[in-house]
């Protein structure tokens, strides 16, 4: 090495980003460069004091995991709601419900609902159970609503 390296090269050597043997040899022989090396080293050592020992709370990962995990779908709650809905509808529609069902001849229309249920079953193999139960709840509600409406219409026409 025929000339002194600049301060940035010496800094890179201190930072472990440079390991040119010729540069090291030059430092051994050149007093001015050794002096600069020492000054830069003290600056690096000073800045190393910025390192930190603070620790994150122990539950940091779990707290974050909770944020990342979507709230569980209340499957049991929805299933219970569907069951209650069915029971309530049986009570509300009264004991003549099945007689009416047969007399007005809407059984064929119910087959549409059954078809939908079967489709839902097929879809359930692709999507999560939460969605299936939600769909089921929607279908039951819709079916009860239609039946209620039909009963009113047919009941009125039949003089009920």
């Amino acid at each position, binding site marked *: 090495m025929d000339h002194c390296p600049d301060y940035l090269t010496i800094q890179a050597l201190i930072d472990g980003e440079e390991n040119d043997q010729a540069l090291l040899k030059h430092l051994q022989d050149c007093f001015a460069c050794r002096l600069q090396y020492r000054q830069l080293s*003290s600056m690096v050592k000073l800045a190393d004091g*910025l390192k*930190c*020992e*603070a620790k994150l709370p122990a539950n940091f990962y779990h707290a*974050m995991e909770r944020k990342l995990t979507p709230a569980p779908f209340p499957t049991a709650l929805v299933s219970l709601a569907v069951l209650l809905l069915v029971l309530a509808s049986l009570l509300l529609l009264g004991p003549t419900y099945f007689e009416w069902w047969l007399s007005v001849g809407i059984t064929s229309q119910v087959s549409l609902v059954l078809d939908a249920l079967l489709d839902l079953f097929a879809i359930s193999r692709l999507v999560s159970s939460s969605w299936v139960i939600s769909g089921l709840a929607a279908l039951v509600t819709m079916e009860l609503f239609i039946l209620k409406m039909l009963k009113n219409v047919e009941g009125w026409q039949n003089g009920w």
Partner: protein
Amino acid sequence: VENRNGGVKLQELFHEMVETYADKIYHLALRYTGDRTQAEDLTQETYLRAYKNLASYDRSKPAGPWLCTIAANLCRNWLRDHRELPFDFSDETSLPQVTGPEELYLQKERAENLLAALEKLPLNYREVLVLRHVGELSYAEICEVLDLELSLVKNRLYRGRLMLKENLLRKEG
């Protein structure tokens, strides 16, 4: 099934990222903001963003610089909006072991002065110093994180260290 396995692998990868780098990211955020609560929030936000973009992370590279890039961007945005907040100088710097209480007091005071000196640096010098000395990133990684030329990183590192020393000397009279 492939998706599920992929999901599990991503989850494992993410867990590993937290285990390996969370403290370092926290330290970075702490040095940027000087506030523990904010640093914790920013660390969490860094990981939430990382999780969302996990699929785009290049697994052939170490995760540290990638996480540091996210953290640095978040911290810079935070600083832009909260310049007026005071810097807490009394946090846990890495102090060497000392014997007596007087020595301990002096060391704590010096650590606080050092943080005060850091806080006085312009952001572009401060972040290069923080990434190098707290994040322990290489020159090339700092270039990548801050999207800067190597020569500029070297210069800022030099100027930053010099200004830090001058600020500290001024502070200590």
